[in-house]
């Protein structure tokens, strides 16, 4: 019993152990950031590597917690993302006054996401969703002397409290209509009565808030702009990825009897999300706001994959999130290095970057090509599988709109690449000396963007898990 517990809950236990280690380091005598940060990076790397060993499949606490090879793989993707963020944002993290606290909050959010992906009933799901959100709102305020950071934290906590309220309302209605909160018992009791549909719409709304699906996206751009880049990248990659994982598994497993209802919702919301995300991304001047709207548009494409409702949809979404971790973190990483050294965050400042910083320019170009979905990069294969999965239902009108949106997204990603490589600038950003840790992070991201697309066994492996 105890052995099962230790092995099955290993990812959560490791994260909790690191969390408390940081707490005790903080309580004890202070360690300088220069020694603290490499220690944390090693711990996070160990957390990621440990995810590959001693994995078993099983259920704990009468179905409240379950784990499968796919869930383990999803957790590994999230651990990898957190490790990469700790590398890429080295400049900002070193200057931070509260480094151990920052990682404590980040790890408790990660713990919440782990529990959320493994959750087997609505109670654990709700609590772990809260655990994955509230620490991030505190993290958004870590630029303590900036007013815009407080505004971002305030907006984040208010909108997440609102969405939690809607989620709880939906859960209580669902419990009233079916009499159970267990994910394994719910599918047999769902018959599509109006009350159940209403409860489901409320649950769906809460997911939409967390994934920033249009029209529930209004908090996204302000929060990304105000918070430190480490937090924006955590929100846009790790939070989005984890919620996408649990969203797809609840839709496919728990709400399968309501497939007709959520298929139509997904189609409408996917189109709205892609169109609005794309149109607003075109006119952004701040790189963080730009990446915020780009991430909204990317979520729209994830919804296209989810709408397929078979295992190709699941495979393509997990595969796309893996690629998205590399590409979006590379883009945020470049922004973080530049912002950490010069404080510049406007796209106009990036003009002529290639003249002074060729390495950063190439990584940024690779990341944006991957986000846009241009062939040699992994992003192309990710988009290809998502759209193929979405097309398996035979709704070709929908897929045509998706393809048109892909073209629009190409325009604004290339706009940045043109600014970096072709536009002339009197005073380009000076030559930046990149920190070795950040450089390692950028190289891992760049390698990931190319290799994940080229190595076909990765897709086959994910396919075998689903």
């Amino acid at each position: 019993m105890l052995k099962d517990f230790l092995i099955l809950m290993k990812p959560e236990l490791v994260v909790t152990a690191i969390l408390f280690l940081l707490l005790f380091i903080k309580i004890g005598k202070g360690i300088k950031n220069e020694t603290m940060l490499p220690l944390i990076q090693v711990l996070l790397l160990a957390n990621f590597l440990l995810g590959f060993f001693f994995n078993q499949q099983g259920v704990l606490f009468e179905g409240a917690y379950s784990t499968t090879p796919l869930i383990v793989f999803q957790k590994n993707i999230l651990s990898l993302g957190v490790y990469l963020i700790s590398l890429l944002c080295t400049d900002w993290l070193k200057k931070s006054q509260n480094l151990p606290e920052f990682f404590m909050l980040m790890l408790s959010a990660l713990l919440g996401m782990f529990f959320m992906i493994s959750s087997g009933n609505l109670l654990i799901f709700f609590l772990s969703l809260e655990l994955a959100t509230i620490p991030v709102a505190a993290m958004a305020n870590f630029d303590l002397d900036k007013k815009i950071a407080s505004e971002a934290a305030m907006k984040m906590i208010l909108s997440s409290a609102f969405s939690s309220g809607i989620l709880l309302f939906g859960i209580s209605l669902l419990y009233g209509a079916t009499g159970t909160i267990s994910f394994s018992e719910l599918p047999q009791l769902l018959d599509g009565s109006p009350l159940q549909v209403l409860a489901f719409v409320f649950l769906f709304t809460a997911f939409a808030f967390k994934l920033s699906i249009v029209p529930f996206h209004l908090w996204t751009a302000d929060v990304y702009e105000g918070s430190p880049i480490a937090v924006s990248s955590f929100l846009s990659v790790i939070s989005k990825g984890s919620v996408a994982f649990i969203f797809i598994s609840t839709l496919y497993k728990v709400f399968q009897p309501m497939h007709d209802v959520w298929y139509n919702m997904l189609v409408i919301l996917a189109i709205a999300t892609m169109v609005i995300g794309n149109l607003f991304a075109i006119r952004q001047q701040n790189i963080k706001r730009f990446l915020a709207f780009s991430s909204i548009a990317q979520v729209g494409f994830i919804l296209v994959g989810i709408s397929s409702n078979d295992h190709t949809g699941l495979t393509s979404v997990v595969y796309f999130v893996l690629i998205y971790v590399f590409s979006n973190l590379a883009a945020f990483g470049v922004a973080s290095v530049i912002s950490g050294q010069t404080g510049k965050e406007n796209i106009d400042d990036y003009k002529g970057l290639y003249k002074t910083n060729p390495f950063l320019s190439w990584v940024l170009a690779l990341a944006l090509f991957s986000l846009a979905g241009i062939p040699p990069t992994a992003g192309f294969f990710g988009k290809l599988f998502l759209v193929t999965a979405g097309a398996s239902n035979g709704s070709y009108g929908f897929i045509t709109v998706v393809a048109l949106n892909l073209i629009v997204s190409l325009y604004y990603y290339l706009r940045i690449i043109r600014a970096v490589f072709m536009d002339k600038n009197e005073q380009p950003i000076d030559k930046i000396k990149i920190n070795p840790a950040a450089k390692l992070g950028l190289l891992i991201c760049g390698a990931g963007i190319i290799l994940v697309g080229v190595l076909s066994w990765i897709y086959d492996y994910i396919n075998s898990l689903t």
Partner: protein
Amino acid sequence: MNVTQILFWFLSVLALFGALMVVTSKNPVHSVLWLIATFFSISGHYILLNAQFLAIVNIIVYAGAIMVLFLFVIMLMNLNKTTEPKKNRWLKLAGGVAGGCLLLVFIAALKSSEITQQTAEVKTGDIGLIKNLGRELFSTYVVPFEISSILFLSAMVGAVVIGKKE
């Protein structure tokens, strides 16, 4: 109609009336006082369902501690008529229409569901007693319990970092 039913209707009317007064009263302090009345009547409902622990906690934590915080904040912010923002008439209309639509959907959904034939079983069930609740909390629901302890820890860390000015 026995005593329990009379109590149920009385408490329900009180809760709804209190909630309406919270929204409609002009003075924020009055709103808070009506909210306390609402919490007390909801605690009464908990007692009718034999959930004694929940009723007491609801009174101590919500009607007691949190409402005192609310009162403090409202008095510190010194809200009065001049600081109240002007509300757009069209915004009010839009809010009314949206709220009315939601109400309509709720009534329609509840009307056609089987839930209307089921009534709450008052005065039965002993899960709400402290002894049984504690046993459940530390056996069946031990994972959610531990998750919430980490949640509180991280909330505390976040609050300390934000509150502490160098």
